[in-house]
């Protein structure tokens, strides 16, 4: 069975091809028949229901079900026990890039061998963990989509993209080397773009897709630089070889690792939506809700954490890189949680919550607790997928309403959604014995006990931030529940008349995921002897470094209990406050608070103006898109200065009135207009006529040849 591992990504790929081709074909025939009927303007958007629906359903969900079965078969073929003892299986499919023999003698002792990159799949305990929950949660979300997208005319297209995503994600997870992982990495980015912009005729969705794609490119640039660095240092990209060599000779590689790891981490920051590249994730909510659950909560965005955990040997060689990871993660967790407090779109709250929880995972990785990070990846996949699917069910019931201010009192009308949503909320808030409690607690304990030689005060600071974030998480999640499910319904009477529970295909995944949100954390119970199953399971992928002393100091049980009590206390305070303020008090206290601190409220509601700043500096400044950038580069360079300065000034002055924006604006506008005049001449040369360019090229060539002939 383990040699059939290649079938795992292959099934979704086949599903993608079948779904995509059938959809294209059916759309074409539909367009032709409508042309024949005398409607030349029919642009593929036929108003009839989805065609070939049964086929798309069977192929779309069936392919993922099959790959899930094969995945579990392969895992159990090797055996969970032997995986946790370090057994792994590398399946080389074919030689991808043969580069010949390595003839350079690098400065560091690398394996002087053949330079090759294979298409190879690797099943060890880390990828087995990812594989298990990605295929399973993916399958549930495919089932959910059958109900959620049932009336959409793009049904086939949707399933084709979703299957392509599963193929890319499984390639990413199973890859045995950096380059194949990068292929999957780019593949999931592409599918993310396609699915965010699924409603491509709506401008905001298309824009959100482009934003996600562009922001991810920044991260991917860092990732591929990191891959180059690894290749230059080790002469191979194979995970097994790279990590074995690095772990056996830490002193030789440590000096180079800070740069390499920071490059790799930039990739993770982009994919996993960490500060400052998190801005695409909230906008990505423009995609259909199951997509948000699958790609932007459970699987794709955790790829960054997976990558960092996969490269844990490299990261552990560089304390500085780990410090950056921890600080970025901790800051993002707190930052995103505060924004989530005041959002009114149900999916936006969940999006910021995802960013915040991803911050937790990176915080764990940064303090060296890679197991705790991966643990949180798994539990987060369960409860966040449940929350997103639950919000999808709410939106479905309300006919597309996403504004929390127009919900309320839904608990009696859609009971299954309500109960599952509540369970997942308790899980994310860290209510004891539910999934989120154990993983979050493992992270908090690891942060508390970590130490950074360069900044001894940092662990306590990060721990305080993480603890505070836990309270905020409980607060904003229960605010969401209170606003949506308690109190009186605040929408239109027409909406109220149509509220009904979602079909079976949607509630069933919710129930399964809610169950997993309860029991998912029991694989990592602390304190109890033998309770930390996940730690034992993942132990082989976190090998000891040669020459380093294994730090075997189990924290005293009392300390661990105290830490738990603190996090539970914060979560309880958050839950109770949210319940009192929003369910009982109907939002009067928060409204008063917003009145009392208008500056703070505006900063939170506008997400700290980060989008506006990026927009001013990068979008407006660098031209509204690549095309204009090419021919108006002169004008935009000029624009960059005043717009950036003006935006920064606007943000700052509206918050604190410290800067006098008129003075600054006046000065920079003067600079701008004077420079703009100068560059107007240069703009003339860009006519857009290819023939003009060719003429200039030909003339230039003629001049060069003439000069050569005369002066040779």
């Amino acid at each position, binding site marked *: 069975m383990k040699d059939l591992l290649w079938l795992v990504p292959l099934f979704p790929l086949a599903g993608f091809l079948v779904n995509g081709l059938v959809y294209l074909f059916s759309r074409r025939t539909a367009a032709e028949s409508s042309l024949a009927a005398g409607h030349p303007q029919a642009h593929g958007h036929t108003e009839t229901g989805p065609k070939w629906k049964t086929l798309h359903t069977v192929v779309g969900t069936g392919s993922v079900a099959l790959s899930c079965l094969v995945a579990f078969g392969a895992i159990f073929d090797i055996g969970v026990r032997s995986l946790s003892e370090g057994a792994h299986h590398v399946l080389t499919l074919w030689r991808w890039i043969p580069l010949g023999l390595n003839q350079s003698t690098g400065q560091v002792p690398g394996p002087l061998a053949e330079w090759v990159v294979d298409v190879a799949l690797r099943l060890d305990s880390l990828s087995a963990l990812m594989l298990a929950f990605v295929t399973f949660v993916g399958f549930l979300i495919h089932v959910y989509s059958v109900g959620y997208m049932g009336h959409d005319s793009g049904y086939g297209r949707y399933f084709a993209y979703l299957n392509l995503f599963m193929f890319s994600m499984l390639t990413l997870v199973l890859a045995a080397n950096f380059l194949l992982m990068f292929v999957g990495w780019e593949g999931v980015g592409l599918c993310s773009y396609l699915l965010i912009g699924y409603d491509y005729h709506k401008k905001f969705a298309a824009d959100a897709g482009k934003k996600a794609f562009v922001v991810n490119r920044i991260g991917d640039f860092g990732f591929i630089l990191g891959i180059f660095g690894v290749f230059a240092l080790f002469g191979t990209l194979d995970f097994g070889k790279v990590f074995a060599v690095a772990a056996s000779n830490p002193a030789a590689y440590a000096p180079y690792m800070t740069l390499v790891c920071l490059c790799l981490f930039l990739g993770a920051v982009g994919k996993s939506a960490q500060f400052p590249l998190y801005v695409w994730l909230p906008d990505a909510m423009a995609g259909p809700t199951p997509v948000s659950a699958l790609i932007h909560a459970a699987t794709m965005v955790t790829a960054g954490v997976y990558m960092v955990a996969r490269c844990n040997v490299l990261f552990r060689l560089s304390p500085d890189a780990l410090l950056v990871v921890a600080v970025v993660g901790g800051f993002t967790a707190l930052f995103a949680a505060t924004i989530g407090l005041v959002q009114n779109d149900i999916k936006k709250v969940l999006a910021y919550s995802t960013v915040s929880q991803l911050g937790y995972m990176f915080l764990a990785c940064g303090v060296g607790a890679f197991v705790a990070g991966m643990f949180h990846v798994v539990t987060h996949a369960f409860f966040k997928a449940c929350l997103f699917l639950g919000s999808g069910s709410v939106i479905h019931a309300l006919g597309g309403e996403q504004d929390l201010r127009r919900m309320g009192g839904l608990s009696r009308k859609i009971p299954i959604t309500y109960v599952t949503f509540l369970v997942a909320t308790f899980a994310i808030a860290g209510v004891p014995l539910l999934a989120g409690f154990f993983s979050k607690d493992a992270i908090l304990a690891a942060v508390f006990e970590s130490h950074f030689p360069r900044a001894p005060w940092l662990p306590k600071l990060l721990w305080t931030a993480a603890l505070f974030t836990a309270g905020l998480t409980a607060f904003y999640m229960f605010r969401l529940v209170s606003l949506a499910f308690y109190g009186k319904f605040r929408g239109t009477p027409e909406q109220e008349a149509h509220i009904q529970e979602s079909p079976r295909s949607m509630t069933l995944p919710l129930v399964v995921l809610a169950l997993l949100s309860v029991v998912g954390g029991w694989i990592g119970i602390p304190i109890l002897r033998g309770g930390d199953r996940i730690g034992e399971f993942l132990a082989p992928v976190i090998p000891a470094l040669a020459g380093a002393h294994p730090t075997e100091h189990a924290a005293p049980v009392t300390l661990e209990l105290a830490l738990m009590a603190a996090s539970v206390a914060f979560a309880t305070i958050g839950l109770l406050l949210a319940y009192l303020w929003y369910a009982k008090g109907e939002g009067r206290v928060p409204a008063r608070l917003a009145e009392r601190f208008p500056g703070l409220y505006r900063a939170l509601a506008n997400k700290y103006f980060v989008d506006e700043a990026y927009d001013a500096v990068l979008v407006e400044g660098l031209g509204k898109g690549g*095309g*204009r950038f*090419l*021919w108006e580069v002169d004008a935009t360079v000029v624009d960059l200065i005043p717009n950036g300065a003006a935006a920064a000034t606007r943000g700052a002055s509206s918050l604190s009135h410290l800067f006098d924006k008129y003075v600054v604006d006046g000065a920079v506008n003067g600079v701008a207009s004077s420079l703009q005049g100068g560059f107007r001449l240069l703009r003339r040369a*860009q*006519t*857009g*006529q*290819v*023939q003009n360019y*060719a*003429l200039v090229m*030909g003339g230039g060539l003629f001049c060069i040849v003439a000069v050569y002939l005369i002066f040779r």
Partner: protein
Amino acid sequence: MTITINHYLVVSFLLFSIGLLGVLVRRNILTVLMSVELMLNAVNLNLIAFSRRLSDLTGQVFSIFVITIAAGEAAVGLALTISLFRQRRTLNVEEASSMRG
């Protein structure tokens, strides 16, 4: 009169110049494409002439490659022409400058 390599080169030069001129001054996209073909064939002639002169088959092999690529270029070019015509109802290359390429 024997035909030396110079004769081939002169013909090739003339063909190339006619093609270049066509690319530079004509506004009809079909004519431009035909002119490009002319330039490519001038290059082929050049390659074959030198190949014969130097008794080296590389030039002839290379010209086969050029012919193959030219076929692909013609196919893509004509496809672009058709889709341009469908979009804009014109074959004038000056009208297709909105990308400012």
